[in-house]
């Protein structure tokens, strides 16, 4: 029984961590249809900016915010100079954003060097109840992820801005005819997506090795999360997708080795997509 509880706790924590990592992509890809292959690079940038800020002496929380803002600014530049000309051309954006990833990775190596970097864990220690272990920092990240999800839900469904964004997603032309500034709204959504990706990278950085490829571990998984959860279902879809891609791995690893568990997760994702091509939570 205790093992079951501990597995459940682990699974939940991971689900929220994955959800945070995938949320930026859910916003950019799920809402706007931009296939952002640079999502991993944005996570990596968030991690590196955090490392840079913490090594410069700035405390952890402000460093994270600065990192997220930094990545948001870079996202703004990317959107303004490149992406906004290609909103209805998915293959071009795929190539362009992949180019962004390649360039960003090399620039990171040049600017920050290739040595192993590390961000110190600001909340070391764990709370232990029997066999259930709650690492303090990971729990904090999961909780923050929950807060962001709830905040985003409130934004999308309870504010005027949210209505505008949803209108844009439903039918951009009609929305512009009704007076919506679609250029500006697209910009805001893309920058929000980049900001969230940077924030995710920053928050995850104390748990992982900060190297130029840290974000890419989450790139493929994030795409799976968004597609399996349902494109357009930014909140519930991301959570369900994260559980399937992240949390379930913890469950499968109970019965088999790591390699088999990871394989089963992706095989399961393929099966789900076979029967629900638009994702588990289809957009109505």
């Amino acid at each position, binding site marked *: 029984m205790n093992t079951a509880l501990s597995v459940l706790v682990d699974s939940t924590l991971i689900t929220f961590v994955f959800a945070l990592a995938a949320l930026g992509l859910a916003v950019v890809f799920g809402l706007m249809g931009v296939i952002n292959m640079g999502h991993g690079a944005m996570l990596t940038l968030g991690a590196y900016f955090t490392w840079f800020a913490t090594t410069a002496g700035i405390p952890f929380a402000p460093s994270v915010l600065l990192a997220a803002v930094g990545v948001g600014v870079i996202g703004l530049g990317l959107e303004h100079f490149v992406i906004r000309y290609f909103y209805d051309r998915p293959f071009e954006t795929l190539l362009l954003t992949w180019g962004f990833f390649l360039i960003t990775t090399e620039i990171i190596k040049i600017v920050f060097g290739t040595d192993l970097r590390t961000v110190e864990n600001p909340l070391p220690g764990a709370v232990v109840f029997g066999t259930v272990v709650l690492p303090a920092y990971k729990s904090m990240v999961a909780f923050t992820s929950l807060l962001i999800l709830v905040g985003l839900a409130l934004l999308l469904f309870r504010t005027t801005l949210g209505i505008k964004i949803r209108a844009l997603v439903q039918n951009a032309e009609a929305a512009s005819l009704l007076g919506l500034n679609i250029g500006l709204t697209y910009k805001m959504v893309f920058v929000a997506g980049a900001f969230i990706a940077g924030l995710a990278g920053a928050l995850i950085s104390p*748990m992982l090795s900060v*190297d130029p490829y840290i974000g890419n571990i989450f790139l493929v998984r994030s795409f799976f999360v968004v597609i399996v959860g349902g494109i357009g279902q930014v909140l519930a879809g991301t959570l369900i997708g994260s559980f399937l891609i992240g949390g379930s791995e913890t469950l499968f*690893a109970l019965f088999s080795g790591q390699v088999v568990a990871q394989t089963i997760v992706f095989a399961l994702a393929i099966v789900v997509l076979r029967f629900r091509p638009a994702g588990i939570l289809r957009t109505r």
Partner: protein
Amino acid sequence: MRTKSNLTMTACSRRSVLKNLALSAGLTGVSLAAPGILRSARAEGPIKVGLISPLTGAWTVYGKAHSAGFELGVDEINAAGGVLGRKIEIVVGDSKTEPRIVVEQANRLIRQEQVDFLAGTFSSAERNAAGPVVTSANKVLLYPTFYEGQEQEYFPGVCNKNIFMFGPEPTQQVWPHMEYMTKNFGKKFFMIGSDYVWPRVTNKFTKEKLKEVGGEVVGELYIPFNTPQYDSALRQIRESKANIIFHTLTGSDTVNFRKQYVAAGMNKDFTLWTVDDEEVVTSGLGPDVSAGAYVSFDYFMTIKNPNNEAFLKRFRAKFGKDALMNTVGVAMYNAAHMAALAIKKAGKVTTDSLRENLKDLSFEMAPQGKVTMRGRDNQMVLPSYLMKVRQGWTGVGDMFEEVQHFDSVTPVDARCKSLPL
């Protein structure tokens, strides 16, 4: 009738015929003389060595010390006048941390660049990929990294008369310290490693010795590369009630795992013994995460040895006072010098003479003290150090404290089909 066009045509064709004749005469002359020109150029030119190093890709962090060690060795040799009056020239091939690129680079270095021998590759997977290439082209490969030992099953990556091992294998890196670790911390081992040949075969050898001292393996986990989350692995470790965690993870996975291991507070309940995390990785981990772990290698920057102090001075003069060196870089340094010694002894540069003269060759000036390349199975005889990562270390100068060491550990014979190689 001779029209204007006729005239022009004849003139053109006569001109072109003359041109062609001159060209072919010139070419014939050059091609006849060419072997002479080329041969004389080769005889006076430098000795070329192909260096295959992970300069980009996932294990860039290791590539630095790896190539720096070799470059320092070659610089010293050239400063002393080279070998047989010829300088050594390094031709670099970036393996991008991928075994299939190693094959490409090895072929390019051997066939296009015409190197005399190869040095490097970093991981066991890379070396095993280079094995068939150096066998069919009959070139020597000097391999520096600590590895899993030679089993005939993995020929031609090991048990290959052309491949010389300058780094330690488990009977040198692990076996000497098994008694100390089990006596002081317990006999239950949980083995966690990356999923490829080095951790698997190292664990196999470790289990043999563990059984000898009456220990047991309570868990064995292999993690695919680039795994971000370790909660299920950590849970398995907790449930296994192990005493010692025997750690062979590598790349970014070792940092991911060790950070999450410490974040879950498990470093208080278990002892971690790693055979992967040397100065570079431990620096990357930081003092909070790495403190208290046990590490065993044939070389550390802080070992007390007159050779080492002089070596580090020269190393820092060339690469800066913050540059990091480790067992792999030192092995490359030794390889460079020993290859030069072997060539000097042979009096010529051929694969066969290099191979014959490397066997049973000793090098007095190795940073870890005198080392010898055992001819029987191409394995270097090395010291073995067990170190503990100090609490609150501030740099490589106080990172490790010595627990015990053996000046020279003779490895068990390689498990090859026929020895000597």
